[in-house]
């Protein structure tokens, strides 16, 4: 009985050893680190102005003449960001044009339905000349909740008015075409 038992064990062990020898003919071992990836976030800002000017008086403005429109600025980037506004180079009339920027809500470029969310007080009230001209000198803007950090889908509408000040020195001068830029930079 014992002989048969030992014979069975020997046969099973022999077959197992043979199979193992065939499968594991070389020692080997690995370790891995999977799923490495870097996916960049985005900083995207846009507006609804349809390339129309916020103010444009080309027929000979008089002291006190003004024009205003509304622009809705939307932050669509995935990264939290700060947003500033600044202007491009202006002509000699710059010191005599008052720019007021109001913060609110609304979608219409002609300001129909604009609702001021700052109690009617402009968030910017300065001459065009004194307006910042780059990121460093630009005016920091807050989102609708009053935070400096804008998140995806934050949107603010600005009512912007340009007025010719009552100053004799302004006669015959021109601001020339200029641009307002809203810039976002991730925090």
């Amino acid at each position, binding site marked *: *009985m014992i002989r048969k038992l030992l014979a*069975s064990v020997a046969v099973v062990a022999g077959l*197992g050893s043979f199979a193992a020898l065939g499968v594991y003919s070389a020692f080997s071992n690995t370790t891995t680190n999977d799923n490495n990836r870097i996916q960049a976030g985005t900083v995207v800002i846009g507006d*609804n102005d*349809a390339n129309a000017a916020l103010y444009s008086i080309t027929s000979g403005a008089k002291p006190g003449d003004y024009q205003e429109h509304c622009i809705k600025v*939307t932050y669509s980037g995935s990264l939290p960001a700060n947003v500033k506004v600044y202007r491009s180079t202006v002509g000699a009339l710059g010191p005599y044009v008052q720019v007021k920027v109001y913060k609110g809500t609304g*979608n219409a470029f002609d300001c129909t339905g604009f609702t001021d969310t700052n109690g009617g007080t402009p968030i910017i009230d300065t001459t065009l000349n004194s307006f910042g001209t780059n990121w460093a000198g630009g005016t920091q803007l807050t989102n609708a909740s009053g935070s400096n950090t804008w998140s995806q889908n934050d949107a603010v509408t600005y009512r912007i008015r340009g007025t010719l000040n009552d100053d004799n020195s302004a006669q015959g001068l021109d601001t020339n075409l200029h641009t307002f830029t809203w810039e976002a930079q991730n925090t």
Partner: protein
Amino acid sequence: MSTKRSADRWASRAGFGLGAAGAVAFVLSSAVPAAPVGHALELRVVANLTGRLDVRPFGSFVRADALRAVPGHNQALGRTAITNQTARPLTLRLRALPSEGGLDRVLRVAVSVGGRAVADTTLGGLRAFTRTPVVLPPNQASELVVRAWLPPGTPRRAYAGRTLDVPLEFQTDFAPKDAAR
């Protein structure tokens, strides 16, 4: 004599049992452990605001926590309103930017804007902007409807346990004022 036969019987049984146990142990030790995956696909289709387009509601507007290639559980449907918030008509094209490419050939998507079908393709097919632009009149909302589904018969390994975010990207251009929808 009978004692010897009985002993032989026990010996052959023990030998067989030992061999079977060894075989089972060998198979079990060689088995690859099953991956800890779920049984379904978690899907989100996302639309966000742009400077020219208002989207309400924005963010995830198509959500499915357990999509499976089984009738009754294989599709997700969502709708949102997109509004041209400029003062001029816009042409709109859109595309998908899925977070991974593994389901590009598996998942089907159908998209309509303002009742007009703009895509009926695979997810991979929607990685390119839709060909036919839709005109969005100023200050009018158009319904964006997205349906995504796993065709019946899709092998489970193709989608099970995955989480897929599909942000939509909108491309707009100004259209002639008299542009028809």
